[in-house]
């Protein structure tokens, strides 16, 4: 039972993180390797605002998410827009920016276990004999709210439909007057916002550590590949697979193997079904 409940919570927080990565990829076709960096940066910035500037929790949370969106938008507006279409440069650029942010934070003093964010709702509850703290339930709740929000946003708003159009067929969407650069910026803003929000929800469960940036990146990539790059439904389902696999390895082996499991899952997926569980990419496009 414990495995079931914690696995569920883990899966939902994982899918929250992975959604940002897969959203950016599906719209702009750019693998945002700075995703994990934005995640850590938001957490750290919220900590700075609260502890050094003594802001209210909610003000600092909102400000730090805005900062994350701003960085995301600037990554596209200042750097990626100039090298659009050169695949090698795009990959290198996001990777370098991500590294710069993560290692800059490490250098800037983000070391050790002294950085924690406060939990939003303290206390815990017993569900089916398993003690779960409210923060984890809150994470599940926020995750579901964000999914719902995105579902409505994509289905019923004009921007959302434009995003969907770009994701499905960029050329046709451009012919109908949708600005692909603008939509890519929107996708970067949304992706970074999700990274920021999930950081604010997940970090209170532990310490803010730089390594979380790499972990988040690796797991969100694993989830997106298994679900099929660019497929949102696939990402959610894959995050349940990876989420339960993580909890099972933690219970039966040790936490060190989690990354091994993620990589094995990626490789098996690439061998058997390269377009992922729900990949929308045509086989011809992906396979050589």
């Amino acid at each position, binding site marked *: 039972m414990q495995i079931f409940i914690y696995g569920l919570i883990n899966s939902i927080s994982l899918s929250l993180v992975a959604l940002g990565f897969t959203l950016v990829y599906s719209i702009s076709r750019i*693998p945002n*390797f700075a995703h994990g960096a934005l995640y850590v940066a938001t957490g750290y910035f919220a900590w700075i605002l609260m502890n050094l500037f003594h802001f209210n929790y909610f003000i600092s949370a909102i400000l730090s998410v805005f900062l994350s969106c701003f960085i995301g938008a600037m990554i596209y507006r*200042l*750097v990626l827009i*100039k*090298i659009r279409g*050169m*695949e*090698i*440069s795009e*990959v*290198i*650029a996001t*990777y*370098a*920016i991500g*590294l*710069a942010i993560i*290692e*800059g934070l*490490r*250098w800037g003093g983000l070391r050790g276990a002294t950085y924690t964010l406060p939990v939003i709702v303290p206390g815990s509850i017993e569900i089916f004999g398993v003690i779960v703290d409210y923060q984890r339930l809150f994470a599940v709740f926020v995750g579901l709210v964000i999914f719902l929000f995105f579902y409505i946003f994509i289905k019923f708003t004009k921007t959302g439909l434009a995003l969907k159009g770009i994701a499905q067929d960029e050329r046709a969407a451009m012919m109908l007057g949708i600005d692909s650069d603008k939509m890519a910026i929107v996708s970067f803003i949304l992706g970074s916002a999700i990274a920021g929000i999930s950081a604010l929800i997940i970090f209170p469960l532990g310490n803010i550590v730089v390594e979380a940036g*790499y972990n988040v*990146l*690796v797991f969100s*990539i694993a989830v997106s*590949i298994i679900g099929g*790059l660019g497929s949102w439904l696939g990402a959610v389902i894959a995050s349940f697979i990876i989420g339960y696999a993580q909890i099972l390895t933690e219970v039966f082996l*040790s936490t*060190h*193997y989690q*990354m*091994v499991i*993620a*990589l094995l899952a*990626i*490789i098996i997926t*690439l*061998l058997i079904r*390269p377009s992922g569980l729900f990949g929308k990419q045509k086989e011809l*496009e*992906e*396979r*050589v």
Partner: protein
Amino acid sequence: MQNKRRERIDRGIKVRTDGLYAISSFKEIMYLVFPRLLLIGGFLLLPIVLELAPYWKRVINILCVYAIIAISFDFLANFVGLVCLGGGLFVGVGGYFSAILNSYLKIPIFFSIPLSALLGGIFCTLLFLPCLKLRGVYFAIVTLMYPLLFTRIIEALNILGGTNGITGLDSFPNQHIENYLIILILLIILFGLRRLVNEDIGLVMRAVKDNDQSVKASGINVTYIKSIAVFIASFIGCLSGAYLAHLYMWAGLSLFSLDFSILPIAAVTVGGGGSIVGAVVGSLILVPLSEFLRFFGTFRIVIYSLILVLFLVLKSEGIMIYLTRKYHQFERWVDV
């Protein structure tokens, strides 16, 4: 108003040396040979010139190691179209193989380096084989993950010396061998690869980058060509890793570190991708810089990344391509 535009024209001597008459005069021979001689001679003289500064003689070794990794990145990215974000993997695998061969199995140093390069090359190629069948970003993603993965595995299982690493590797007999071995390896790899990319198989590799469907339509197995290219690149990378392990007489987790992944990429971007020499030129600029910045510790990674991004955005052709153009062509204003 009279509009002008800039026009680039090949220099006369460039045109003459393109053809059969390249060897008709001393000037033309020098035009072709001088840049190459400058590079070779410069590298060979470097240890002698730096005899006065023993510390910097060790920097030469590091420089050559980085240059070799940068060449392997440049080769994979700009000639085969595979972006390898984990140069640290090659260094780490090469270093650990060489440590196992030399420290555990007592194989002498001059056999353990090439042998570990060979084994490491095969090992890395096998690791990457699943994603070679696919195009797109999969290769970049998987190469990003492997160095992190190996660090975790070695930490978790406490194998191969755990976090302390494997010590007690043989060192080189003396410092001159240490210097000249890596310089010679670098020069051989540099000119060898430049030759290779213009051979038949090199043409096929470049075709894989540009249009893999047409390669497939020609009845050539794309995965096979890609795996050969990955083998060559990882062989080169593992060679430098094995050398590095023997240089430090130690193989540890820091061989998988990010420095080996990001600095070569930055070097290629600064030097100019797609020319192979650019990788060497970039390392010649960045590695001494990184020695000056030793004080900053991990902040150096931030600096490399920023340099990389700045070059990508502002001067994406790189220094070497720019210099080559200036060497071969001149510009003038003409009426439109």
